């Protein structure tokens, strides 16, 4: 099962936290939530993966889609606080080079 928690910060950054397993069941929801945040003017999004126990290729596809959506709107999508399974999957697919995970949510957009 999965649950999504979203909020926006004072600096305009949208924070999206999938809690549970990010699989083909949840991937369409994630895509929708990213689009919604971007439409509301939050093109900078942090996906807080601290509560994401598991990701599959459909979940990765949704993150890639989100990266494209935010970048097209002049923003970016950043991953933060990834757990060991998510990290392993990012490395096995070489997507850690594109979806460069940050250690924590608070500092995910530092230096920009």
């Amino acid at each position, binding site marked *: 099962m999965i649950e999504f928690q979203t909020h926006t910060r004072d600096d305009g950054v949208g924070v999206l936290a999938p809690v549970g*397993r990010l699989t083909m069941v949840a991937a369409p929801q994630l895509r929708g939530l990213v689009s919604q945040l971007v439409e509301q003017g939050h093109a900078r999004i942090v996906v807080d993966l601290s509560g994401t126990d598991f990701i*599959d290729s459909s979940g990765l596809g949704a993150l890639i889609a989100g990266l494209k959506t935010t970048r097209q709107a002049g923003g970016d999508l950043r991953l933060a606080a990834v757990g060991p*399974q998510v990290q392993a999957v990012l490395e096995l697919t070489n997507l850690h080079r594109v979806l460069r995970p940050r250690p924590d949510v608070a500092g995910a957009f530092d230096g920009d």
Partner: protein
Amino acid sequence: MATDGVEHVLRVNARPESLEQVHELLAALWADDAMPTLDRMHFDTAVAEVAANIVEHATRGQDVTLVLRVSGWPDRVEARFEDDGAEAHVDLAAAAMPGSGDPDDLDAVLALAEDGRGLALARAAVDELVYEREGSTNRWFLVRRRSR
């Protein structure tokens, strides 16, 4: 230690919601198995990808029964899938991982593939991944050897 070939079996209708039961079956395997965490994560990842592939490609609007057997052995863990769905036209040897591109180049980012990683990921996560079609049955066989 479940290293004596004790099997855990799941028989379900192949639907997206069934993937949760696949994870529960894996949890039952690990409940009495001392497989190192990294090996477990790789095995779970590959098993979940094959299960998702069956749900996505074998069903084609039809009811398909998926049977998954997982077992622990002294040197490895195994998963065997059987389903009566459509034939999977896959060439596992040729299943290539889509490219990752330059993250600072917008065109390269926009060209990133959003799908097509599942079987390449499964293959990368286990030591053996085999698919066979026999009569009207699809069979998938996965092995992850224990790290020493």
